[in-house]
């Protein structure tokens, strides 16, 4: 019985992952990320990878909302910031364990998304873009009304870390690295499954033509709210992870989690990687963060080179780099299958 079960899993794995080159590529890349710590990188490198994974998750959640449902939001930092702040406050000042505070932060994000979604999803197109942009900035200024331990410019200093120092293995960030990698990978799979489920198809129909999908009897408002809440949940997860890994070595401050640039990051990463694909933003986030570190030799010109490269890539591949590669791979497999079929004839 057990053997049969395993064999079935194995065979479905082979047909679903091994025989699809793009999925195989994704699996290989994941394996590569798993063995990176074996090369004994410095904690700095691990930290860069950790922040890349967090932003990958953040950008993927944005992609579900925008790439699938077409609700262009420029204020996703709102959820990132709410979750980061909630988790940091609850764990630092109320002594709650981290595994409880991050879900609480996500829950709060979902609630906020539900409350803001009702009115703001009424507006459409560029208006939605601009109204969503306002929310994190309003919260950003509102935080300045509170007194320093919580509010203020410097935010919450040193929220607790996931693992006490030197947990398990020698390197400082190793345990966090694996934790965040796995969380990112599993959430990415969930997001991918949602995006390609029946719900995902309904969402794409809303993206394509809202009036037509309404005419087909789809409750557009319900689906929009659903995707808004789902997206907020995962953005909140990313925010919570941020607060206890990258934020925990400095601070969770309004500038770092609620600023304009925090809202801009997922957009840049998603467009760079390929919108509407879920894997696109992950590739985008990963390549952009590593690219940023790669140009460290350029010193002052670093950011300039980096932005020029992004602009050139977007002009050259407006569909996104990852999407381009995957489409090429799919084309190749189709060609190969056709050739094989012709040979059989």
């Amino acid at each position: 019985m057990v053997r049969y079960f395993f064999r079935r899993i194995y065979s479905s794995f082979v047909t679903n992952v091994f025989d699809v080159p793009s999925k195989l590529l994704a699996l290989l890349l994941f394996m590569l990320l798993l063995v990176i710590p074996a090369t004994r990188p410095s904690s700095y490198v691990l930290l860069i990878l950790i922040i890349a994974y967090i932003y990958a998750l953040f950008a993927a959640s944005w992609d579900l909302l925008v790439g699938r449902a077409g609700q262009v939001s420029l204020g996703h930092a709102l959820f990132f910031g709410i979750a980061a702040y909630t988790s940091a406050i609850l764990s630092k000042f109320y002594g709650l364990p981290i595994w409880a505070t991050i879900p609480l932060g996500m829950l709060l994000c979902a609630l906020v998304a539900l409350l803001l979604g009702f009115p703001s999803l009424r507006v459409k197109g560029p208006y939605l873009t601009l109204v969503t942009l306002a929310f994190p900035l309003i919260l950003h200024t509102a935080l300045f009304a509170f007194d320093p331990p919580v509010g203020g410019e410097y935010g919450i200093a040193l929220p607790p870390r996931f693992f006490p120092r030197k947990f398990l293995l020698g390197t400082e960030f190793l345990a966090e690295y694996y934790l965040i990698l796995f969380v990112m990978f599993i959430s990415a799979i969930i997001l991918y499954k949602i995006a390609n489920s029946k719900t995902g198809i309904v969402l794409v129909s809303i993206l394509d033509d809202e009036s037509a999908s309404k005419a087909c009897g789809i409750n557009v408002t319900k689906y929009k709210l659903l995707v808004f809440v789902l997206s907020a949940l995962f953005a909140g997860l990313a925010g919570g992870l941020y607060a206890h890994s990258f934020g925990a070595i400095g601070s969770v401050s309004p500038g770092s989690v609620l600023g304009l640039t925090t809202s801009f990051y997922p957009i840049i990463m998603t467009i760079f990687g390929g919108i509407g694909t879920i894997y696109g933003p992950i590739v985008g986030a990963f390549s952009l963060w590593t690219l940023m570190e790669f140009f460290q030799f350029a010193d002052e010109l670093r950011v300039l080179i980096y932005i020029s490269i992004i602009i050139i890539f977007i002009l050259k591949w407006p569909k996104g780099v990852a999407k381009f590669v995957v489409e090429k791979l799919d084309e190749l497999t189709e060609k190969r299958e056709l050739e094989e079929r012709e040979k059989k004839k």
Partner: protein
Amino acid sequence: MIKRERKRLAAIAVVALVIAVAVILTSLYSLGPVERADFLTKIKKLVIFGSISGSVFALLALGFTLIYGVADVVNMSHGAFYMLGAYAFSVFLTSLGYHPLTNQSSFLLFAALILAAVFIGLVGIVVYRLLIHPIIEDTLSVLVITIGVTLMLHQIMLLMFGDKNLPVRKLLEGTINPFGTTVTYHEILSVVLSFSLISVLWIFITRSKIGGAMRAAAQDREVATLMGINTERLYMLTMAISASLAAIAGILLSPPAASPVLRDWTYPLVMSFAIVVVGGLGSIKGSLVGAFIIGFAEKSIPIFFPGGSFLKGAIALIVMVVVLLLRPKGLFGKRVEAE
């Protein structure tokens, strides 16, 4: 349909005005004599400074709404053009031989203003032609590219000028005291300048041939192309006008000489968003009204609530959200859109 819409708007405006006057009168009536005088000066201040910043904001938002209305481009680099304008003004001023102590001719100031506006207009053309034009059909890519341009210009400014703040001269020195408040000549000049620019632009758009082409392209890009309008060149021109308006607003609105945070593109960007959304995207009339609403709202914070200075940045956004929730297409935006 449109007429009814206008009537409703007018009714809303009248009701708002009546409520505002009633609130002011009742509070005047209930206050003591000293507080009454204090309150009156506050109101005077609000009216004067609100209209000053409102008129410059109008200039800023007009560029943003113009390029959106004509070319459907949500230009995130509008704030960068504003910032760049102030820098270019300062650089041109020093290279023209202006010196705050020895050579103070105001002719040089105006020459630098015009040079800076033209220069930023050229920058706008280059940005449009090289970066925005190839992907203009894809709104999201345009968004990202213009964000990229903003970050890039920010970096270039950082590399060229570092952290030091360039002194921004006032166009005119001196002050006058109307109604017991101090107003600088620079502020009066900026009101006059923005209003004359706005009226020139209005006449240009409504009367001239190119303006007609702009309105045609705003209505329907494809049909305008079929009618023989070169939309590419038209968009380039629109972008140039939009960028130079932002630059002039940047020069007029820059903080006085020694004040910091010149290298800031978020503030003008957020302001133009708020104004344009309140007024209705793509509507020139709307952005004028929106600019004054936002101007008054912003100035009311330091005047009426001196303690809540942290609210100064958020008030414009709060007004924007409230207006948008009441009217999802802004005050003057198209309410019903054929989809």
